[in-house]
Every structure is written in structure tokens, then in C-alpha cells.
């Protein structure tokens, strides 16, 4: 407990930083759930592709540990765009091949979960086997830097510049933490406003509320589902860049654990609810840190899940248990 008191601000701020990554990924789960009432199990892989897009973009732009601060910031901006595009694209592919055929046939909900599990395996294994795949098309020499040792951990090739800003209590806030938290909040705010104010956002809310009436009112539900996946993918791409700024390394199966955490965050906040995802993510990130300070780092994940169970016991639909459709316009 003394440790928690001594490091209170440090734990809170690093928890918020990690939590905002959870929150961004959780948005993808929560939006798809709001519109389709399906757990998009493969969303974690969408995130994973974003992390690799970040690493590869840095390779492509020739990043090295010696890159100057300005160059790194420029690179990160490019990475953000590329990762959002890649993740959004993967999410669209996912919708087209894993979900749309099933939605068309009105398959039972559980089978969509199986299809998503299959898609998740396919996506992560494709990444894990990219060396073999490149060999199959004869590109392994040209792409050797990108595809060798496909199953190993990959780190970003640059040093993220970090400057200490000011102290709060025991902790000196640095630029990295601030960047991650602020960037995540801005993304969430943009998405929230988009869903609330834009015409397309209204379509999403309409389908989430009542798909049949929405269809009768002329909302193209296929388009809406596509848009939902695309937005979720874009958010996951942004989360991937922030994750790489903070953690710095990824692997072909890195999505899995983070996906589970993000999904937990989405459920904790009330699945189908955008603000709930934000709250859930932040609560989860901070609670994990406090928990590991109190009982030990190795119990971090246990704390997260116990917290989830306790919250669901008292609020069976999550903290803000309100659906995407019911968000006030």
C-alpha cells in the first residue's frame, strides 16, 4: 500500500496512457456490437496489422536510432496515416469476407463468432507466415527486411524523443505519456462528434436502434456496417501507433491479449456505448496499475478480470450501460 501511495501519480498517469490505447481499440468492439450485436473477435488482428504498418513505414522512411527529433515526429505523422489506412482496410476486408456472407444468410449469432475466430487465425497466421508467402511469390529478397523472422518480435527502428515536462507529486510527466493520452482523447472526441452530428453517424445510430425501421427509412444498412468497421479499424490504427510509441515492439500474435483487454474495457463501460468504451478503457488501465502495485505485477491481469466481474455484478450492463443507438443526438 505504501508503494501505491508513494507512486500514486506515476501509476495513475501510466495507467491512463495504457488505458487510452485500450479505449481506442475498445471502440471497434463497441461499435460493431452496437450495430450488429456481434462480438468482432478478429478486431484484435486489425490492431496488430496497424502495429506492423507502423514498423514497416518507419523502415520504409529509413528511420534509425539516430534520426533527429523532427524526423521522428514527421515519421510518426506518416505512420499514423498509413496505420489508419491499413487497419481500416483490413477491417473492411474482414467485414466483406467474414461477416457479410453470414449477415446475408441471417446465420445464428454464434456462427458469426466462429467465422470471426477463423478470420482471426487467418489474419495473424498470414502475418506470422509472411516470410513463406513472400517466398511463394518470389519477393523474399526485395522485401527481406520486412519479412524475415516473421514469428519474432519487431521493434520500431527509431528512438522516440522524450522530454520531461513538469512534476505532479511524485511523477514527472513526460511528452510521450501526454502525447498518447491527448491523441487518444482527441480521436475519441472526433469520433463521438462524428457519430452524433454527421449524416453518416445518424445512419449508424439509426441502424443500431432498429435495423428494420432504418432500412424502411432508406438507410443502406450494408453501407452502415461497412462504415462501422472502417471507423473501428481507423481507431485501431491510431491505437496501434500510440501503442508502438509507448511499448515499441510487436509480434504476429500481439493483438490477442490486447484485444481481450480492450474487449473487457468495452464490456466494462457498457458495450455498444462509445463513452462507455472510453471510461472502461481508462478505468481498466488505471485499475491494472493500482492492482499490480497493491498485490504484485504478476496479478495485474487477475485484477482486471476480477474488477470486470465485480462491476458486471452490480451493473449488469456495464458502467454506462447505454447503447449506441440511444446516444442523444
Amino acid at each position, binding site marked *: 500500500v505504501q508503494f501505491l501511495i508513494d507512486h500514486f501519480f506515476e501509476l495513475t498517469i501510466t495507467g491512463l496512457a495504457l488505458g487510452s490505447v485500450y479505449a481506442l481499440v475498445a471502440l471497434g468492439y463497441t461499435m460493431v*456490437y452496437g450495430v450488429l*450485436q456481434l*462480438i468482432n473477435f478478429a478486431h484484435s488482428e486489425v490492431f496488430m496489422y496497424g502495429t506492423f504498418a507502423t514498423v514497416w513505414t518507419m523502415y520504409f522512411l529509413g528511420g534509425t536510432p539516430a534520426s533527429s527529433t523532427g524526423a521522428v515526429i514527421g515519421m510518426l505523422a506518416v505512420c499514423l496515416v498509413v496505420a489508419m489506412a491499413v487497419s481500416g482496410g483490413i477491417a473492411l476486408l474482414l467485414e466483406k*469476407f*467474414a461477416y457479410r*456472407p*453470414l449477415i*446475408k*444468410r441471417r*446465420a*445464428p449469432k*454464434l*456462427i*458469426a*463468432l*466462429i*467465422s470471426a*475466430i*477463423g*478470420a*482471426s*487465425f*487467418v489474419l495473424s*497466421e*498470414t502475418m506470422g*507466415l509472411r516470410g*513463406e508467402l513472400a517466398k511463394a511469390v518470389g519477393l523474399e529478397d526485395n522485401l527481406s527486411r520486412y519479412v524475415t523472422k516473421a514469428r519474432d518480435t519487431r521493434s520500431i527502428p527509431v528512438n522516440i524523443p522524450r522530454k520531461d515536462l513538469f512534476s505532479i507529486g511524485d511523477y514527472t510527466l513526460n511528452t510521450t505519456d501526454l502525447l498518447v493520452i491527448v491523441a487518444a482523447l482527441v480521436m475519441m472526441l472526433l469520433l463521438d462528434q462524428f457519430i452524433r452530428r454527421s449524416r453518416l453517424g445518424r445512419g449508424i445510430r439509426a441502424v443500431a436502434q432498429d435495423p428494420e425501421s432504418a432500412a424502411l427509412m432508406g438507410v443502406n444498412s450494408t453501407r452502415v456496417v461497412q462504415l462501422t468497421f472502417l471507423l473501428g479499424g481507423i481507431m485501431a490504427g491510431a491505437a496501434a501507433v500510440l501503442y508502438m510509441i509507448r511499448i515499441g515492439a510487436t509480434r504476429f500474435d500481439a493483438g*490477442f491479449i490486447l484485444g*481481450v483487454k480492450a*474487449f*473487457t474495457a468495452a*464490456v466494462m463501460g457498457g*458495450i455498444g456505448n462509445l463513452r462507455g468504451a472510453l471510461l472502461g478503457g481508462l478505468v481498466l488501465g488505471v485499475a491494472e496499475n493500482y492492482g499490480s502495485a497493491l498485490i*504484485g505485477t*504478476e*496479478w495485474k*491481469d*487477475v485484477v*482486471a*478480470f*476480477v474488477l*470486470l*466481474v465485480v462491476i*458486471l*455484478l452490480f451493473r*449488469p*450492463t*456495464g458502467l454506462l450501460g447505454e447503447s449506441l443507438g440511444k446516444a442523444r443526438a
Partner: protein
Amino acid sequence: MSTSLSARLQSRSQRLAGRRQAVADRLRPYRVPLFVMLAVFFYALPLLELPVISTPDVDFGGVLFIVATYVLIALGLNIVVGYAGLLDLGYVGFYAVGAYTVAVLTTEHGHVPYLWTIPIAVVVAMVSGVILGAPTLRVRGDYLAIVTLGFGEIIRLTAVNLEWLGGARGISAVKGPPDFCKVVEANRCVEAYAEVPHLNWDTGAPLVDIDKTTKLLDFGVLDLVPYYWFALTVIILILLADKRIKDSRVGRAWEATREDEDAAELMGVPTFKFKLLAFAMGAFVGGLSGALFAGKQGFVSPQSFLLLYSILFVAAVVVGGQGNRWGVIVGAVVVAYLPERFRGFQDWRVLVFGLALMILAVYRPQGLLPPRRTLRAKRAEQDIELLEEGALDQPGPDQPGLEQGALGGPVDDERDPRG
């Protein structure tokens, strides 16, 4: 898809379903001898060493044992997911509880003989099922899925972190079933009471191979066939119990709860109690298979109880056809056997498995062998849809009319011999 094509596809699936019904009806009087024959075949399977079925890269007895544990798990999970309709993504937790109970009791913490630990393991697993279920079963639908997922992870992480449970290294030297052996030398069975030879297909025709034999009921490390026989026996017992329960009041209560919880509650079914019972039953079977696994493996570690396995178990149930006990057996065989059979393609097998799941989801959304009730319900749904769209002008010759009991509900379904 054009309307005519979809209509043709529908009538084709209806015809297939009708044919399946006809086959099932004709086989009905012979179902006991058929079941016995099937059981005999599966007992003999490891001895036959059939050329295509046997795994070239791994010990076939071991593979059969793995498949058998998956079948057992799928049967248990089918009670929870298929009968009661509760999505459990943490089923591996019960499997772990069973395995760890055996491991703890047979090693330094207890030295209890293996066979005694099985009932204890099962009871502990059931208790953990009730402990998990009592608070969480009030949560509905997908929330339940994530809560159970969390529970599975909590169990695994607890095992990783508690030194008393061996930590990340796990517990080794877990005892297995006792041997029936005539002469034991240096802890190995040298001479058994009886030995059965395997077959050899090297020449293209089956020959009895006297050099390769299985000692009857020697639970050693080299020959895993006796473990498979043990597991198979357990499966048969569970199958019989499963049938009795499904056909009883309890089974009907589960079905009612699954189809419409509020309606069931209104009709006087105490849904919460029955859901809890389903959870406990599922945990019972899960713990049992965990106990079998620990006895055969000789050691348990948290690595054997990853979240991924929970997902594979659910995949086995759904791929096979949730709610049909033969379907989930097929599903478990697909999920457990195929990756072992194609171990030669080590690198690619997960990718192919993922693709297979996606293709299956599109083309067999009800599973490989759905329960007949599901098929009938689906047919009735299609009929209603056609009626609503006014396309029922010329019903096909084999299209069942609504008055033929397509909507008649589960009245005669209780007699369904196939589950």
C-alpha cells in the same frame, strides 16, 4: 443471389433434411446394436492402424487420446452452450481445475491414488462451476461470455502465480492410473497378463504384427493406447448419462430456457436454477476430462490451459452442431484430429484451420450435424417467410406444409434418438 437460385437452394436443403430424417427413421430399431458396433470399432481403432486415418508424424495412440479428451470436453460444453444456450468462453478453467486437483493430490501435497482423485477432481470442478455460476448467471448473453472468459483467465493466472501450484513450471510426476501388470521391473511393465497385436499394412493387405503389441492396461509412457481406452470408456458412460438427462424434465427445462428465458420463467421453469445446473454439469465433465489429461500427461502446467483452448472448444461445439451430441463429437474430432493428422504442414495448419472455420461458417451455419429440431425450426421459418412474401404459390412436392407439424414444437422431439 437471385430469388430462383435461393429458392432452389432452399428446396435442396429441405430435401436433404428430409432424406436424413428418413435414414434416421429406418435406423431407429437398430440403434442399440449400431451403437455397440461403433463402440467396438472405436476400441479397436488404435490396433487397426488404418493407413489413411493413422497419423504418420505423431504416435497414433496419443493423438486418439487427445481427440478423446476433446470429445469429452465438447460433450460437456454442449450441455452449457448447446442445451442451455449459455456461451461459455472460459471452459478451459474447469478443465484446469480438474487437472490441477489431480496433480496436487497425487504429488507432494497428498499422495492420494489416482483413481481416488478423479471423483474429488470432479466435485471440485463442479463446486467451482457453482461458485462461478451463482453470481454470473444473472448476467445475460454476451456479458456472460466475457465474464466466463475472465474466469478462465483468472484460473490460469492463479496457477501461474501460486508457487503452491507449481507456478509457471507446473507440477510434474503426476501419477496416472494403476497398472494391471504381472511382472514389474524398474517401474516398467515387462510382462502383462495379456497383449494384443496391432495390424501392419506395409504390404497393402492387413497383417497381424506380432512385434508391435499393446500390453493390456499397462499405463506407461511409451504406449498411450490404454489411456485412450480409458477415456473412451468414460466417453461412453457420459454419452449414456447425457442422453438420459437430455430426455428428462431437466433437458426440456434447458431447452425452454434457451429458446426464451422469459417465457420459460413465466411457465414456471426456475430458469436460474437450471442454468446453474447446466453450468455444474458442464463443469463436471470438464473437470473429468482435465483429470484424465493430468493422469496421462504426467505433468500439468498453465501452458495447457490457455484461453485459446476455450475458444477451440467452443469452435468444436459450434462446428459440429450445438445441441446434437453426435454433432459435437464430429466437431471435436475435426478440431482435434485434423491439425494432428497434418502435422507435416506444421507451419500452415493454423492458417488452414482458420480458413476452414470461415468456410464452414458460411456453408454450414447450423454446424456439420445440427440437431433435427434446429433443422425443423429453420424449415418452419423459411415457410413463414415464403408465406409472407407470397411466394408459396407452388409448394414443391416434398415441401412440408405448416400443418404437418413443422411448427408443432418439441412434442415428438423428445423421442428423438439422436438428440
